[in-house]
């Protein structure tokens, strides 16, 4: 099997699985679960294999497939791997089986539909990452809303309808304006090149006037920033997270949010480099505001899921900060931070789901001293908490360290040239790590420490993690430590693409430092 074939298979495995799923009887929940587990595990294996086949240092795409799809418009079915999407594809594939395994006991209603939606979601997420054609990208980007809409709306909590509608309508608003920009790009290509095309590579070379670029970037950025989410476009996130079932939260935090940052990385900035350069101070500001604002909000929440949701706002602020440093350190760090956040926040949401299954409460005030009641659980929770704080040897450190180092590296020459503002922002971002520790340790302290109590703990005891749950968390924790300790392999494979990114967006910055 050639790698390109394998990549196609990787993308379409969930679809094939979905078709088989349709044939299964609704009552056989075990078969349904087993099937999606098998499909997603196979996908993970395939993704891992492709990861190892992926060659570092090769410019451009690898394992490319390009077939005309809507010939008249120049739309191609065009997918491929590069350094920018490689890790995110791996992350999505990694989280897939974990999500399904995590839902074994928590999803008992409409099991078939649920797994159908998870497979659908997996398909669209991978499609978004793999697409190398703007039309295709948009298709997947937008289609992703559908399964998520159902997952939150059908299996969610009390205010699920409100939350899911808010999620859908909020994100769809961004997408509509992006669609306008996509259409504009489409016919610009036609008028400039004479032939229609949606290929990213063709679109990169369109030389727009700066004013036009700013407008187009604004349209794209709105959509991406909502998904990230950057303050002040974040209010859908806590609601969606709180109401979503565990699986929904995990995918949402683990992968969906990364689409926003990936969008900036792959499309937003490279498509409109001049505008990106102009907008950099603004984006930096928003990123730092997100870091601080999210950290502040996470501190004053009493709903465990909300704390983690707001922590996502904060953590993705670091990713954005890294992306706009435009140097290798920062951008590489941002990519690692994306993966890390996917693992850590995904893991934390899984863990909240596990405790919710036992106690049916997400109210922090109802808990205490779980370290006594659930020692194994607490160990895992502590590890993930520390990874969220960015403690060294965990993935969170690798990401945050490189991001902040890169951002500082970019800000210092400006400081020496007389511009204090970027340096101030970076310093504030560094202080953000204090705030991060503040809210995460508050969560850990109130949940794990203190007098042992938990709702519905019969006779003062709770069932500690089972083998399945341990396996899920062990996989996550292993990945967290792997990225914390040995990030180099990842970094080597992404480097080439990042170099291309920085040369496309801000070649002048690419020259100084980290290149």
């Amino acid at each position, binding site marked *: 099997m050639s790698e390109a074939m394998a990549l196609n298979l990787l993308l379409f495995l969930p679809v094939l699985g979905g078709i088989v799923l349709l044939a299964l009887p609704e009552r056989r929940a075990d078969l349904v679960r087993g099937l999606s587990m098998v499909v997603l595990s196979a996908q993970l294996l395939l993704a891992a294999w492709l990861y190892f086949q992926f060659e570092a240092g090769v410019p451009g795409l690898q394992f490319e497939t390009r077939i005309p799809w809507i010939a*008249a418009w120049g739309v191609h079915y065009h997918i491929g791997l590069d350094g920018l999407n490689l890790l995110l594809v791996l992350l999505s594939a990694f989280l897939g089986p974990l999500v399904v395994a995590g839902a074994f006991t928590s999803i008992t209603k409409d099991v078939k539909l649920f797994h159908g939606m998870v497979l659908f979601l997996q398909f669209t997420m991978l499609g978004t990452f793999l697409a190398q054609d703007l039309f295709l990208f948009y298709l997947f980007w937008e289609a992703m809303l559908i399964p998520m*809409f159902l997952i939150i709306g059908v299996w969610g909590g009390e205010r699920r309808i409100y939350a899911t509608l808010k999620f859908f*309508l909020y994100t769809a608003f961004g997408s509509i304006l992006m*669609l306008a920009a996509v259409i504009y790009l489409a*016919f610009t290509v036609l008028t400039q090149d004479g032939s229609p095309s949606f290929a990213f590579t063709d679109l990169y070379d369109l030389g727009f006037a700066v004013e036009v670029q700013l407008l187009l970037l604004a349209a794209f950025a709105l959509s991406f920033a909502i998904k990230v989410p950057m303050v002040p476009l974040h209010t859908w996130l806590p609601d969606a997270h709180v109401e979503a079932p565990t699986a929904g939260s995990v995918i949402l935090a683990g992968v969906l949010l990364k689409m926003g940052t990936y969008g900036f990385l792959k499309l937003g900035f490279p498509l409109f480099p001049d505008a990106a350069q102009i907008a950099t101070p603004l984006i930096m500001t928003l990123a730092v505001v997100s870091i601080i604002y999210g950290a502040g909000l996470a501190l004053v929440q009493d709903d465990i899921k909300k704390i983690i949701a707001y922590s996502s706002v904060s953590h993705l602020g670091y990713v954005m900060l890294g992306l706009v440093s435009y140097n290798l350190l920062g951008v590489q760090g941002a990519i690692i931070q994306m993966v890390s956040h996917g693992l850590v926040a995904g893991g934390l949401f899984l863990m909240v789901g596990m405790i919710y299954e036992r106690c049916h409460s997400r109210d922090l005030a109802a808990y205490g001293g779980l370290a006594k009641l659930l020692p194994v659980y607490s160990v895992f929770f502590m590890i993930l908490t520390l990874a969220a704080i960015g403690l060294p040897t965990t993935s969170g450190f690798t990401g945050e360290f490189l991001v902040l180092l890169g951002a500082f590296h970019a800000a210092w020459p400006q400081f020496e040239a007389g511009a204090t503002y970027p340096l101030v922002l970076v310093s504030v971002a560094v202080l953000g790590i204090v705030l991060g520790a503040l809210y995460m340790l508050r969560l850990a302290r109130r949940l794990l420490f203190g007098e042992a109590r938990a709702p519905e703990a019969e006779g003062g005891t709770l069932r500690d993690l089972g083998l399945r749950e341990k396996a899920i968390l062990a996989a996550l924790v292993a990945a967290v430590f792997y990225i914390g300790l040995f990030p180099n392999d990842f970094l080597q494979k992404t480097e080439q693409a990042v170099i291309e990114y920085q040369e496309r967006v801000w070649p002048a910055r690419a020259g100084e430092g980290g290149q």
Partner: protein
Amino acid sequence: MTPEGLFLAALPEHLLLLGILAILVTDLVSDRPRDPFLLSLVTVLAAMAAAIGLHTVGHVAAPFPGHFSVGPEAFAGKALLFGLSIPVLLLARSEHFDSRFAMLLLSSLYGAGLMLSADSLLMLFFGLEILSLPLYALVVLAYRRPESAEAALKYLVLGGVGTAVLLMGISLTLGATGGLGYEHFAAALAGGDMLSRGAVVLVVAAFMLKAAIVPFHAWAPDAYEGASVPATAFMATVVKGAVILALVRLFGDAGAGPELLAVLIALPLLSMVWGNLAAMRQQGFRRLIAYSSIAHAGYLFFALLGLPEARFEAVAFYVIVYGLTTTLALACLPAGEDWLRDRLDSLKGLYHRDPRSAILIAVAMLSLAGIPPFPGFVAKFLIFRTVMESGLVAVAVLGLVASYLGIYLYLRVIQYMFMSPSASHSRTLPAGPVATAAAVLSMAAVLLIGVFPGVVLGWL
């Protein structure tokens, strides 16, 4: 003009006529009512096949020069309208079908065929009336409900006003340019005098009335609600499609002058906002479809803003997709008492009673909302690209934002089906086999178009 030429050029229409006659004759000669379903189905299929065939061989002819001519676009348009009426027929068969319905429907289709080949306002008017008059009767055919007569009346009176307005416009065209050919209309479009402007705007207003553009839309919600489900499907899809395709043909290569352009921008935009918002709070499914069709009429009219060569493709594709998905949604409604199945409440918890229908309706809704990967997205994309290409970037953006307002109403239906417990009065009565066939047919077409939009676009 040779007899063979006339025969060949108008073959689809002839076949329809033949079908009508055959139904009429069988109805006359037999003493007990006979089921005309097969006959009408065969008729429509044959007409469609003829249109497709003639399109494929690239037949071009003008048997009545200046009044009636055929070409690829005409055949493509007819083929798609006839094709869209097939699920409607199936849908009708599943609840109430007799020879009257068949004949009215076929007649209306005949009118649609004429409109798509018209080269003069005379012929256009002729076709439009043949299209419209049976509709009033079709609406009233669901006469077991008292509202259908009221619906038919409203439709008739307002439709009559529309006819009068159209005629006034035609008459003014005649006065302004000295003829009734499309070239005269084009001259009127280009002309700046009072008579020409009045003529053009009245014609356009009449078409807007037929297509239910705000503020000429008032009849639509009531007529759709009063009509039976298949009649609703027919009006929302085939009729609307015929009207707009005919208008595209009427405009030809001409573009609107600035003052008419303003009308063509403002009113469709208003329709989108109005239709999408008003649909949000509807409790009846057909009424919801009606308001949604008002919004969709807005999108369709936007195609007229585009460059001439792009309009037909955009409209035709949109009509196919919109028609198929609307029919799909209507075909999947659970069977039962008419008033009951129309209530949106009855859809609550549908997924748990009839998952297949629920999923199909959901697909239809998402496609109508223009969410990818469903073909509604491609259709919308095409329309707005057309608008943007003609330089009206801001208008396209406004249109897209207006279309955003429509997302909620479709989501609401999905929310009812998947996320709400069943209402107390709803029972599980899955749709009948014929309706299912209609649904499957539509769904298959939707899927096909969704996966290979390029094929359809290439064919158009």
